[in-house]
């Protein structure tokens, strides 16, 4: 299970980055970036898991029982998700403006920054 969990996390990061390397569209680059980031969520939550422990939420009506799974990584993953959404929004906004000024989103055809 260790191999699978960490492997999937690493795979998502690498696959996302590879998608960015071979991409022909900046919106595609943005989506690949968010796939790469989802690798970090998987990594974080995999680290915090504990067999047989429930979520760190002691809801009303149920007794307070320990242990629970690691709440810290959940808080981190949660922050991470919000960060990802905001960065994606900014990148998409930039992509829209790039399309307006360049008439293309293909990185091979963008020519304004050289040397």
């Amino acid at each position, binding site marked *: 299970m260790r191999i699978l969990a960490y492997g999937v996390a690493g795979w998502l990061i690498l696959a996302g980055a590879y998608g960015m390397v071979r991409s022909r569209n900046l919106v595609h680059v943005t989506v690949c970036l968010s796939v790469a980031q989802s690798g970090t969520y998987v990594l974080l939550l995999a680290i915090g898991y504990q067999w047989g422990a*429930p*979520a760190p*939420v002691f*809801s009303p*009506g*149920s007794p307070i029982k320990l242990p629970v799974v690691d709440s810290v990584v959940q808080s981190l993953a949660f922050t991470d998700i919000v960060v990802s959404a905001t960065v994606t929004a900014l990148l998409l906004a930039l992509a829209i403006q790039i399309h307006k000024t360049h008439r293309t989103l293909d990185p091979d055809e963008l020519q304004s920054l050289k040397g």
Partner: protein
Amino acid sequence: MTLLLGAGLVLILGALAPAVWLGVRGSALERLVGLQMAGAVLVPVLLLLTYGYGQSSYLIVPLVLAVLSFAGVLVFLRLLDSRS
């Protein structure tokens, strides 16, 4: 408990996985069908797992999923529709 979790697992393998598979293949509209199915199947899966884990507070998750995935698919449909 294990029975419920097992039922969830069967549903994941038998319905959710094919739905996600549909969601990543073909044209945008074909994918949308898969997405709609995945959202619809995930709700009972999460319900089964909630009872399987014996954590009633998890129920909020399928509830939110049911509402949002439905709304999401409708918005998608509308945007894809007026594009083509």
